[in-house]
């Protein structure tokens, strides 16, 4: 059993990750700080409920999700996002990955798959986090509304000003960029 001081130290280590998630979703540093602070205080109070099975970050990330979803759904206005921000021409961005007839280009295709050993799990998650941090902010915000908050596309469209078509393009673009970044990272682990 960790002492109270150790608990706070463990919680404080996760703060930057949580704050980035919250800031992206809530759009305001002050609101993000509040949501994270509430999460950490709630976690400290409910430490006995933390069973350690899923890891501290995962536990906190789950608690924070509820706070962010409540905050977003409680708002009467949509998070202002510029329609088309970052959507652009997704075909040309990924042209170098494909041949003229849209097959994977053999000269640049990275075929590394990750050897998911338990020991490397933390490293694998670090790679994904690093890759996610490289996404443009508006793209990351929409991507995380879907992937973190679990909102359906229709709700994301309603709560942002992005059209259905552009939302699909942005999500596609984020996933393609993440794959490209992740497979490079996996290659370096070998």
């Amino acid at each position, binding site marked *: 059993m960790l002492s109270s001081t150790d608990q706070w130290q463990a919680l404080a280590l996760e703060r930057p990750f949580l704050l980035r998630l919250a800031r992206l979703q809530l759009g305001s540093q002050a609101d993000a700080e509040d949501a994270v602070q509430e999460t950490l205080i709630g976690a400290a109070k409910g430490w006995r409920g933390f069973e350690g099975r*899923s890891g501290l*970050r*995962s*536990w906190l*990330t*789950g608690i924070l*999700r509820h706070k962010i979803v409540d905050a977003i759904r409680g708002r009467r206005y949509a998070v202002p996002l510029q329609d088309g921000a970052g959507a652009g021409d997704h075909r040309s961005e*990924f042209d170098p990955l*494909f041949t003229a*007839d*849209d*097959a*994977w280009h*053999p000269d640049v*295709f990275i*075929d*590394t*798959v*990750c050897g*998911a050993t338990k020991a490397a*799990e933390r490293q*694998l*998650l670090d*790679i*994904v*986090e690093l890759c*996610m941090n490289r996404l443009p902010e508006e793209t990351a915000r929409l991507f*995380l509304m*879907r*992937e*973190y908050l*679990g909102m359906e*596309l229709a709700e994301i469209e309603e709560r942002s000003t992005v059209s259905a078509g552009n939302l*699909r393009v942005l*999500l*596609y673009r984020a*996933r*393609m960029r*993440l*794959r490209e970044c*992740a*497979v490079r990272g996996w290659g370096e682990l070998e």
Partner: protein
Amino acid sequence: MTTKKTPLTCRDTTYLVSESRDAPLDAEQNELLAEHLKTCDACRTASIQFAQLFSQLDSLLARK
């Protein structure tokens, strides 16, 4: 008479893989994807990579 479906390109498969993360593919999309994967080594590899990436995202973002 049956209509011959246009086979997918590798780039098409990436659109479907992304879309499948948001909503289940329909029967025709699944069939076309499966047909393409049967004959395309690179897409089979890419498909595994996407699955691994999505699984890691689920862990990182506590979606499991």
